[in-house]
């Protein structure tokens, strides 16, 4: 290593030029990064088995709730002023290219029976002029199963103008969705609402755009906050400008390189990816701090600047490499995930951590060689911390066995609690608080919702005209409507039943599927193709039930999925109809839950790899097993926190496992290495060895835990509730990791380490410190 460092220092100008060039290229590449929060990014990947049906369905029927919704609230939406306003908005939006259809009360069609007549056609061919006409329209609209809660609230206090995007919202880019929303807002600006009318722009596209904006805002805010917190910690440590600039410059270069490489993959930065910069920053800054401290110690010892650099690097290159390697291996284990979001996250952070090591041994020495060294006396532990650690060990020493028993009991209890932890992803509930979230809640309460489930039926041409098929669809539809979370459920069977009722004088008992295929066909032939195509394809082979609901989380949707599947199996048996549950709720939530499962699996794999690595490194099964207990305890502590605060495991909260895996084992490894080193040096008193190791690694371990925790604490300022929880959980894991090592690792080593068979000094020379 010393030769490499001397070579670098000998060609510092060329190295600096190379560095600047690589940074310029990285920045240029990173500028192409696309930050976005799109539901689709989580479920639209080649190996997702649900996508084939989802795409087939979307191509046929579009996105059942991919509308930009103008939610109009008024004392009475059937008041002529309000209807005129809705009509003006509808006419304003209809010619817009970004929308394929615009639906509202003023262009809706209805069909109903009135004595011997069937009234069919536009609900409002002309706006009502008299109170009687208004009441008539209200009565018809609020009694229509196709309009109520879809276009108008049952209490007449809310209605919607649904502007369906030409590109189905589930497939549209954020830019397209943004344009659609802007178009709707422009229409609102051109048509001021009458007095007493409140309009909100909401719907699925609004949720996606707002989330993306919040994510961008997070990235703009969180990274500087993390930097500030680390900057503060560096100032406390080194109390010099160089002490701040040098480590941050080293880790900054690594982060920029990683960003540049990530941009080449053309994968958007989603909510998982948004945690990468902070993760890299906090993990990457630790090694430069250790090297800088050692460099300062060498300067204080009277070395020349270049010699101090070379010696500091030579002594710390291997330990830094090994801790970086364990961290990188930990993250790399996520690369085996099937979901691109998780796999890319794991690989990118692994590369970033490795690059951080590279910059520690290249950029840092280069900067140390050109910048004046900071004032002396900056590095080193605090006597107060040293005394506190020594005092702690003195109190622990007589109680190591009870401590071990308590640790095992805590582990068992925590594991029992954690075992029952629920996985429940959430979409609407994770949106940043504000006007958009309020609007979505109002939409859910008054009308439908933005989370859509689809029961998709496919059969032979003409199958959807068969009464037995329609009756089965009606039964499944009716079941869906009984679910508390479901706001609206609409199907072809509803449409046919509505017509049947109309042709039977409006008799409610006739709101059912007629008995013959021919009659169904005749009813359907009466409908306008633009209305009919929402329900069934031209060959009458494909149809669907569209379910719009509140968003209680994926756990509820998993249950709904099972129940719907059971109902489908029951009612469609022997009818020759293929059924699939799709829509963003089913496909999206399936993928989000899968992300959580893969994060958990990745964590277990990473944990196992690091333990295996320890086993090889120390050639000691005991040390490997001890590290399992002491590093599981912090994780268990976080699971207990999740349970206590009723936080479900979901994509963002489960990320704490990923971001903290790299920080968990470092102290344990240093602890075990220091113990073995003392034994190799001839020490034989286990209590003295443990106490010495605690005082040696305690201060830097505490410092590392604080820096990591402070860095991840920046997530607590996120607009996303899940990322805020992630910040707290990461802090809990990393800080409790420090205490676990200081207490549990110490006690376990004292009790279980085979002191009498400690390796001879010669063998220890090959071991790792």
């Amino acid at each position: 290593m010393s030769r490499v460092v001397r070579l670098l220092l000998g060609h510092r100008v060329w190295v600096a030029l190379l560095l600047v060039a690589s940074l310029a290229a990285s920045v240029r590449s990173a500028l192409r990064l696309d930050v976005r929060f799109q539901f689709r990014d989580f479920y639209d990947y080649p190996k997702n088995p649900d996508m084939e049906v989802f795409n087939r369905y979307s191509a046929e029927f579009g996105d059942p709730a991919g509308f930009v919704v103008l939610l109009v609230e008024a004392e009475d939406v059937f008041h002529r002023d309000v209807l005129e306003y809705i009509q003006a908005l509808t006419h304003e939006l209809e010619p817009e290219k970004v929308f394929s259809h615009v639906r509202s009360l003023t262009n809706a069609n209805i069909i109903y029976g009135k004595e011997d007549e069937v009234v069919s056609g536009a609900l409002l061919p002309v706006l009502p002029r008299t109170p009687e006409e208004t009441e008539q329209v209200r009565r018809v609209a609020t009694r229509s199963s196709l309009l109520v809660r879809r276009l108008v609230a049952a209490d007449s206090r809310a209605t919607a103008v649904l502007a369906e995007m030409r590109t189905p919202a589930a497939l549209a880019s954020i830019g397209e969705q943004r344009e659609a929303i802007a178009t709707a807002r422009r229409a609102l600006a051109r048509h001021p609402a009458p007095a007493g009318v409140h309009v909100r722009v909401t719907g699925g596209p609004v949720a996606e755009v707002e989330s993306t904006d919040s994510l961008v805002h997070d990235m703009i805010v969180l990274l500087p906050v993390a930097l500030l917190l680390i900057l503060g910690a560096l100032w406390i440590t080194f109390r010099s400008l160089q002490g701040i600039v040098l480590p941050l410059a080293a880790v900054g270069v690594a982060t920029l390189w990683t960003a540049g490489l990530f941009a080449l993959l053309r994968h958007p930065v989603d909510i998982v990816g948004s945690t990468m910069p902070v993760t890299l920053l906090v993990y990457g800054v630790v090694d430069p701090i250790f090297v800088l401290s050692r460099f300062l110690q060498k300067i204080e010892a009277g070395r020349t600047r270049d010699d101090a650099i070379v010696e500091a690097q030579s002594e710390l290159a291997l330990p830094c490499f090994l801790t970086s390697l364990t961290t990188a291996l930990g993250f790399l284990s996520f690369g085996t995930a099937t979901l691109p979001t998780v796999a890319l996250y794991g690989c990118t952070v692994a590369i970033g951590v490795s690059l951080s090591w590279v910059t520690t041994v290249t950029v840092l020495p280069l900067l140390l060689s050109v910048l004046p060294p900071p004032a002396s006396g900056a590095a080193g532990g605090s006597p107060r911390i040293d005394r506190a650690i020594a005092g702690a060990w003195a109190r622990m020493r007589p109680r190591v066995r009870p401590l071990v028993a308590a640790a095992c009991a805590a582990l068992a209890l925590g594991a029992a609690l954690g075992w029952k932890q629920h996985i429940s992803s959430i979409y609407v509930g994770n949106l940043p608080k504000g006007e958009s979230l309020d609007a979505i809640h109002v939409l859910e309460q008054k009308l439908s919702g933005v989370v859509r489930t689809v029961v998709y039926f496919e059969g032979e041409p003409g199958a959807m005209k068969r009464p037995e098929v329609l009756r089965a669809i009606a039964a499944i539809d009716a079941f869906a409507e009984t679910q508390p979370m479901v706001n609206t459920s609409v199907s072809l069977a509803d449409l046919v039943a509505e017509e049947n009722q109309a042709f039977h004088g409006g008799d409610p008992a006739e709101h059912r599927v007629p008995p013959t295929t021919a009659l169904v066909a005749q009813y359907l032939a009466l409908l306008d193709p633009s209305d009919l195509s929402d329900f069934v394809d031209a060959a009458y082979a494909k149809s669907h039930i569209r379910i719009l609901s509140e968003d209680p989380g994926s756990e509820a949707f998993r249950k709904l999925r099972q129940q719907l599947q059971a109902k489908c199996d029951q009612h469609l048996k022997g009818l020759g109809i293929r059924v699939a549950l799709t829509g963003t709720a089913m496909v999206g939530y399936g993928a989000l839950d899968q992300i959580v499962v893969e994060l958990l699996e990745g964590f277990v794999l990473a944990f196992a790899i690091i333990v295996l690595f320890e086993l090889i490194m120390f050639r000691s099964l005991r040390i490997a097993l001890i590290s399992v207990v002491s590093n599981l305890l912090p994780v268990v502590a976080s699971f207990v926190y999740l349970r206590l605060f009723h936080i479900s495991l979901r994509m963002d909260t489960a990320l704490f496992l990923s971001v903290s895996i790299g920080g968990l084992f470092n102290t344990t490894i240093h602890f075990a290495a220091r113990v073995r080193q003392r034994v190799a040096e001839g020490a034989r008193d286990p209590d003295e060895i443990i106490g010495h190791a605690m005082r040696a690694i305690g201060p830097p371990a505490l410092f590392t835990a604080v820096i990591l925790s402070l860095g991840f604490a920046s997530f607590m300022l996120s607009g996303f509730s899940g990322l805020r929880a992630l910040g707290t959980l990461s802090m809990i894991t990393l800080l409790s990791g420090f205490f676990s090592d200081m207490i549990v690792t110490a006690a376990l080593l004292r009790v279980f380490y085979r002191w009498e068979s400690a390796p001879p000094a010669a063998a220890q020379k090959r071991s790792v410190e």
Partner: protein
Amino acid sequence: MRRVAFSLALVFSAAAQADAPPAMSAQQVIDKVLESDPWGLSGAEVTAHAVLKDKRGATSELAFSARSKRYDPPLSKSLVRFSAPADLAGAGFLQVQKRGDDDDRYLFMPDLKKSRRISGNLRASAFMGTDFSFADLDRRDLREAEATLLADENVGKFPCFHLEVRPKRGDSQYSRAELWVRKDSFLPLKWTMYDKAKVLLKTLTADEVRRVNGHWFITKSHMVNHLENHRTDMFLEQVKPRDDIPDDDFTVRMLEKI
């Protein structure tokens, strides 16, 4: 040389004026269009079929026969009976146009075994799944409209009156329409219809016209719905002008008689 050219221009101009029909007002052209019966729904017996093509190119067919009678020009009565697809066979539709009031419409569905009066505003709705709306067939938007003559244009090789029509009724689905009416037969060869948002909604084009017993009919035409990307090709297979169909043939009783 310049004088010769000027003289020739005068000669051709005079000749052109001599060939031109006498100047007509927009309303006169509209009246002539209403007098004509392009699809045989005002005094004829027709056998026809329509081919419907959706946005994915899937096609379906509708076959029907129609009898009609002009009873209070330009008003008429018509009874349409469907024969295909099989599900619709026997279904019938009776329409009696009214001058001031809504037209009377009755629908007969064989499986219900009785007819129903259809009220309400379905003028904007498609006629049995085709791209022709009820409004396109009842021609009320021509009867009750403000028409303006625009500069004459040719459609193909045929000189046409070019008119803009703005329906007066509030329940029309169109804000305006443009017609190109053939000068010799007063058949509308092309018809563009704009929705309330002034967006081109549909275009009707005559592909074949035929003269039968001195009456002109559009025997092949197609209507394109630009918003839905849907198309209907209409073919009049047989058309026979008749003015002797009794009134009794346009009753609910006759509608319910298969």
